[in-house]
């Protein structure tokens, strides 16, 4: 197992890590808009549809040169997107079915072409299958320059047209009435997603590339309510997945880089879905529990108050075990919380008969306020 120093100085590993981080940043930023525009699956379709283009590029050029293959990928991705739009606009298919149809149709063509190429003896075909799951180790410095330039252009466009992209994503019809060319802006956003997908094919492959579009954005959305911060976090999560994935797969030789990168991104999504404040599942269930407890406390307080009214005794004492029977659950926690807030106090009355509670003045006014807020003012006015 190589040590960290070897890792950082190893030429290939450094290239792969840098490339994966660049990819993570771009796909995170562009994926944010795709996810907010409810086009998560568009990335999936674009990446699957890239395969026939890659194969055709190979058949035409006859060798595994990166640029022709990527151009092929872009062309077939675009063709699939147009096919999908045609299905949505001209048939009765809904968007999800149209995406699914276009995806499987183009991917099937790709696989057929791939098997056709493999059946013909040609020394250059080796490595073409690597586009299925990506082969990060084949990255050379020239690729990094291409990746870097594409990322820079995409990020600059997003920065320049930030407010236009924002209004188109949030409310496209309103954006149109403001005079913005919404169709053009949508095409730009979609094309940039396609570009990010094509960039990622070498690393992650056509099958898993959609994860790099969706995962960082979905994770980022959990942590913030600001678009700026969401896009920034998505870039950060994307870069982090790329870096950690590349390093892990380098440390444990034999693990494919692409899937490990996707696993890292998915792990970040899992953490975010569970633990993010406000939107996280854990937070939500704690909040539900808290509200539940608050409601029960108020019920108990209200009933203590009603009992004291019925007995015409403000300091009427209620036995805790009686309340347990009445409610069918242990009320100790609730009484404890009410006591902590100063609404009730434990009375010294007949301690051998179990704990007894009576309302404090503060508890009295809290119960009145609660009951009148429920429209039971006639009880509260007494």
């Amino acid at each position, binding site marked *: 197992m190589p040590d960290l120093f070897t890792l950082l100085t190893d030429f290939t590993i450094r290239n792969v890590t840098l490339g994966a981080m660049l990819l993570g940043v771009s796909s995170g930023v562009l994926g944010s808009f795709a996810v*907010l525009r409810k086009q998560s699956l568009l990335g999936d379709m674009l990446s699957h549809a890239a395969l026939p283009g890659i194969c055709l590029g190979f058949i035409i050029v006859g060798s595994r040169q990166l640029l022709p293959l990527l151009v092929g990928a872009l062309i077939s991705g675009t063709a699939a997107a147009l096919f999908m739009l045609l299905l949505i606009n001209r048939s009765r298919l809904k968007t999800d079915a149209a995406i699914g149809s276009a995806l499987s149709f183009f991917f099937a063509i790709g696989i057929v072409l791939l098997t056709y190429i493999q059946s013909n003896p040609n020394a250059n075909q080796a490595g073409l299958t690597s586009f299925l799951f990506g082969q990060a180790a084949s990255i050379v410095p020239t690729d990094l320059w291409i990746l870097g330039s594409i990322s820079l252009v995409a990020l600059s466009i997003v920065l320049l047209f930030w*407010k236009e992209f*924002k209004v188109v*994503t*949030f409310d496209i*019809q309103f954006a149109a009435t*403001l005079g913005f060319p919404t169709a053009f802006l949508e095409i730009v956003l979609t094309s940039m997603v396609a570009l990010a997908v094509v960039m990622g094919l070498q690393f992650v492959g056509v099958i898993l590339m959609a994860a790099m579009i969706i995962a960082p954005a979905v994770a980022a959305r959990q942590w913030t309510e*600001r678009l700026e911060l969401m896009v920034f976090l998505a870039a950060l999560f994307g870069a982090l997945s790329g870096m950690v994935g590349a390093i892990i797969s380098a440390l444990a030789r034999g693990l494919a880089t692409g899937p490990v990168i996707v696993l890292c991104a998915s792990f970040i999504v899992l953490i975010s879905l569970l633990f993010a404040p406000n939107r996280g599942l854990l937070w939500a269930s704690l909040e539900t529990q808290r509200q539940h407890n608050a409601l029960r406390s108020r019920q108990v307080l209200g009933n203590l108050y009603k009992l004291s009214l019925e007995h015409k005794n403000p300091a009427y004492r209620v036995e805790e075990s009686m309340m347990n029977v009445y409610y069918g659950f242990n009320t100790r926690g609730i009484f404890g919380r009410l006591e902590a807030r100063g609404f009730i106090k434990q009375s010294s009355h007949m301690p051998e008969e179990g704990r007894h509670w009576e309302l404090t003045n503060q508890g009295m006014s809290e119960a009145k306020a609660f009951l009148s807020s429920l429209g039971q003012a006639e009880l509260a006015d007494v």
Partner: protein
Amino acid sequence: MSMPNSSHEPNLALHVEDLTVSYSSKPVLWDIDLDIPPGVLAAIVGPNGAGKSTLIKTVLGLIKPAAGHVYIYGKPYEKQRSIVGYVPQRSSVDWDFPTTAIDVVTMGLYGRLGWLKRPGKAEKQQAEEALTQVGMQDFAHRQISQLSGGQQQRVFLARALVQQADIYFMDEPMAGVDATTERAIINLLRNLRNQGKTVIVVHHDLSTVTSYFDWMLFLNVRTIAQGHVNDVYNAENLRAAYGDKVALLNQNPLSQNPGSALEPESTP
């Protein structure tokens, strides 16, 4: 009801000629002629599927008509964009979008800002003023999904207010809001009208048409009737627009509360 057409009708806030829209072979709007004078608070009223939203969207160029022309203060919409404000249906956007109330309001200024320019202090101040006008100043930095339906509607209105338009199109601004918000909204619309602006509203509640609006259009694919509310709001036109549903009306004195006799229309 259509007037003899002079070329452009610059004295009308909205002039629509022979407008026809169809999604498939069935027309959604058929041969609409419509004239709305400036400075009125106008309601577009009609049953579900009457094409009320489609009419507004077509006027605003969001839907391409099969035929017809639209003039706003005498000129085509494309030339008058800067004096037109729009409040879409609240349900037309995803309120879980990661942004704040004041940011949404600021979007109303994006058109005037133009490309590449970022909203600055002046824009922020305008947005704050608009939020104050709709009573939402305390919610400026609230995430929009945490707002109630009525509050979200007010944010949309504030976004239209910063546009400082001369003519406003609003798609069911009072659908699904509480009574307080509805009162606040109608007061706001009246203020706009009193400032000489024209406000055209898709409205779903027949019981409030006469008290809220001074101009109205009965629409059901075709123009049924248009004009001053007092001249147009009668049993004959109601029946023509709503068909059989309105038969019940005959048993009630029309001027009292016709809305109670009708199915309240829900937002699609």
